[in-house]
């Protein structure tokens, strides 16, 4: 299933947030979206996920929804969005309970995704007992359980410390190599973008427009820290973003971030 954005423009009140965004996301591809804070990255992701409607333009899906996908467009949130009163397995169960399936099937899916994210021994734990990295793994397990066609990830690693972030990036790479999932991955961290993105979309400051799309051919599995080619890309991205970021930083916020 492919994703197509056409001419997306949006205003909140008088402020234009996004301006004329055209983008296509192919199957099995991870597209990273970067840009200075407040440029509309989260807003764009909400449009893609159907949580909000843009003023102009449209988000289109092409191709059939993969068989067995319960929630084709599935979010992973920056702040995990786990229900604090539910255990790890019950948090995963939550998103399956509204679908017609037997208790056995549900149990199997839960056991499977928890095994795939290395959480099997934490089944009964409550979110407050888990570290940030573990919580985000639960959120990823929950997303996987509905067999998404496209994962919409809004700064999924930004709330984590840098070591945990490295670990989870490795996990995501492993996961992608096994399952070839499609993802829109919003981040402000350039290292994450060059590590995980097949293509990197650079947005300008508000109103967000596409400034450049950088493609990285290197297979995800071959990208490691300290890779000179990736470092060069990262520097190039930083050149593009620096002035935008500085200008965005000096703007007076007139809405919620």
């Amino acid at each position: 299933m492919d994703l197509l954005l056409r001419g997306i423009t949006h205003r909140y009140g008088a402020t234009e947030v996004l301006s004329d965004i055209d983008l296509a996301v192919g199957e099995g591809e991870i597209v990273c979206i970067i840009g200075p804070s407040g440029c509309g990255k989260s807003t764009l992701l909400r449009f893609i996920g159907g949580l909000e409607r843009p003023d102009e333009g449209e988000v289109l899906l092409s191709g059939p929804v993969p068989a067995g996908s319960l929630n084709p467009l599935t979010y992973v949130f920056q702040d995990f969005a786990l229900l604090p009163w539910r255990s790890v397995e019950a948090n995963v169960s939550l998103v399956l309970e509204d679908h017609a399936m037997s208790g056995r099937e549900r149990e199997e899916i839960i056991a499977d995704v928890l095994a795939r994210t290395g959480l099997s021994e934490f089944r009964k734990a409550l979110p407050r007992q888990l570290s940030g990295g573990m919580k985000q793994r639960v959120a990823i397990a929950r997303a996987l359980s509905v067999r998404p066609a496209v994962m919409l990830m809004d700064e999924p690693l930004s709330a984590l410390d840098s070591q945990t972030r490295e670990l989870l990036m490795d996990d995501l790479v492993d996961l992608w190599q096994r399952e070839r999932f499609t993802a829109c991955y919003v981040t402000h961290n350039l290292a994450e973008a060059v590590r995980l993105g097949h293509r990197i979309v650079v947005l300008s400051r508000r109103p967000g427009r596409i400034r450049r799309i950088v493609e990285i051919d290197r297979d995800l599995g071959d990208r490691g820290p300290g890779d000179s080619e990736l470092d060069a890309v990262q520097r190039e991205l930083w050149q593009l973003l620096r002035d935008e970021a500085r200008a965005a930083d000096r703007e007076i916020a007139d809405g919620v971030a």
Partner: protein
Amino acid sequence: MASLEGSQAAGPALNDAGGGAASATDGVLRPVPYRGGGFRPVPVRFVGLFVFVALIALWEAGSRSGVISNLVLPAPSEAFEAFRYLVESGQLWRHLSASLQRLVIGWTLGMSLGVAVGLMIGLFSLARAGVLPLVSALFPIPKIALLPLFVIWFGIGEGSKVATILFGSFFPTVIATYGGVDNVDRTLVRMGQSFGLSWWSIVRKIILPGAMPAILSGCRISASIAIILLVAAEMIGAEYGVGAYILMAGSLFATDQLLAGVAILSVLGLVVSWLIGKAEAWLLGWRG
């Protein structure tokens, strides 16, 4: 850290060689003054009980020695005597069961309706716009002032008594519930929507548990109000009931009985508060 330990082991003579922080002064090591602590009451057992017992003992001693006149305040032992008579004559259970019945029915109905209306105000713009001003206007009215109206509407029997307690516990519950719904983390609701959960699932599995802490603290308030209103409600021609017993004792100036009745209400309040504490531990265990 290492240099401090080093100079400690070597003694003052070698301080300069150690070069640690301690050598800045005359070589006397002293601990960093502790400035933390406080502002955080921890549970201390039996102190409450001790204060209670001591106060009663003091009071009893005062009465026996004549410092406290019997006319002003009867001794605790006299109030206890009245209570014992109440138990032995079998009246206690009669009064208590009548009161408990009113309390349970009125409070349960008030709570359920309150939670339902609070949820509606929290969830629907129209309900908020239409009902919230009404709630704000009616909440501060002392329900006691409405007693005559309740008698006309619901009759002199159980109806008016239950209605008083119902109205009293309804309003605080509404306000606590909609406040709780407002405070539910919106990203959790968004998460539910993004996974395609049904509206009813989101309300039942995300909003209601998220508002539960607020609902339960509303519960505490409404339970206390219900007990307060019990006495008022039993002013309306009740034959039995703890409130009726207190009122009767009051009108006869039987202060020992009056105190016994008040103590029963007090204990009732303690028991209810303990039960709600249990419910909190059970329903809100996830907060740790």
